[in-house]
């Protein structure tokens, strides 16, 4: 009958509160990319769909793309926080879009070939990649 006394109820209610607190902490570690980027959310959504349809994952690990997670090219994890594009180009959306569409022209000798994308599509993919941060 002790369990029904009000002073013991607090013990039981502490459990859910702690659980919520832990979940909030863990959840707060890494919000999804589209919750953080300051750029256009619909462009980022389209960018992710295009990344999947084009198969960029064949060579790159990209957050948000569960498969494939290719390793021939660099991982694009936290791309929005990284330095220069391909180690040499200033990280502007325009440079990135140009690189995505036709890497060999922007950086001769790149393993990454020209991609079957138009300018808008490349810009959407760039928006998605630039929106990803390490958190």
């Amino acid at each position: 009958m002790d369990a029904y006394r009000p002073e013991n109820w607090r013990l039981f209610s502490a459990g859910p509160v702690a659980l919520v607190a832990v979940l909030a902490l863990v959840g707060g570690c890494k919000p999804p990319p589209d919750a953080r980027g300051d750029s256009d959310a619909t462009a980022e959504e389209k960018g992710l769909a295009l990344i999947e349809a084009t198969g960029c994952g064949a060579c790159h690990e990209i957050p948000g793309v569960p498969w494939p997670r290719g390793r021939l090219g660099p991982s694009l994890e936290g791309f929005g926080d990284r330095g220069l594009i391909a180690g040499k180009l200033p990280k502007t959306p325009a440079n990135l879009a140009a690189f995505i569409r036709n890497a060999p022209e922007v950086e001769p000798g790149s393993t990454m070939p020209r991609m079957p994308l138009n300018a808008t599509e490349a810009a959407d993919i760039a928006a998605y990649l630039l929106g990803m941060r390490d958190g």
Partner: protein
Amino acid sequence: MVDALWGWPPPVLDPAGPYADSVTTLSWALMAMGVVVTAIVCIALWIALRGTGRLRRMLGGERAVWIGGVAFPGVVLTVLLVWGLTLTASLTRPITGDEMRIRVTGEMWWFRVEYLDPQGNVVLRDANEVRIPVGVPVVFELKSADVIHSFWVPHLSGKKDMIPGRTNLLRVEADRAGRFGGVCAEYCGGPHALMGFVAIAEDPAQWRTWFDERAARDAAPLPPAPASASASSATVAGTAQGRALFMDTGCAACHRVAGTEANGLAGPDLTLMGERATVGAGILPNHRGTLTGWIGDSQSIKPGNRMPSYDRLSAQELDAIAAWLERPQ
């Protein structure tokens, strides 16, 4: 991703030929019947719990048992059985032997495709892609080279197993043009989930042109190896280098490219790879990027597949091989 499993409406509910059509109609009828019966049961349950005394007495009476428990299911199930068997009778129509034949062999983890002439000789080899003319019945000879696989193009027909040592026949017909995803529907180890193919149905005249051109290429004698890298344009030099790399790196030991000395039969035929819809057995769209990624590190894309990753090739070498595969000369 294997396209057989995605899209809206789901491929299983979007028939593109008579052999899938009747099964889809039957499925809808069964689902509708299921909903009706569930509704009747729910109403009866409600009456039993909340109904007025008169309704409850009717439900509990012997009459209700005879009508609802014997007559109703007896009549409905008999009608459904007769209708269902009539509807799907055409699925078991005997194969006459004069249909167009395509042999598809399941391999770990891809599909070998061979088009047969009426005498049963192979006239054209391909992989992970079958092209069929619209409105023409086609019989697939289904075999396996290793373990049990299953051949399934949900838009066109039901599944049929590919069993080692047996040849199973499956008749299929497409009544509209389109690209239909196929998939291995029997767990066959490792990257089973990444074992797909594409069935392309096209206008018969267009199909005939494609077939004649490919069959001629398939039967063509070996041309002399093209002049080496001293050839005029940079493109020609590039693809000539790709050809040399393909032969020297060992690709030719497993892959065949019709019209060249590459004659390996262990892996998929790569003749006119550039015209294929997919890379890696129905799993990635085919373009220079995915092809390069596949050659360079197929193990990260399809872990456990039997092609090693060629990460000791340089960017320029990978590109040369991919360029030559897209347009062998």
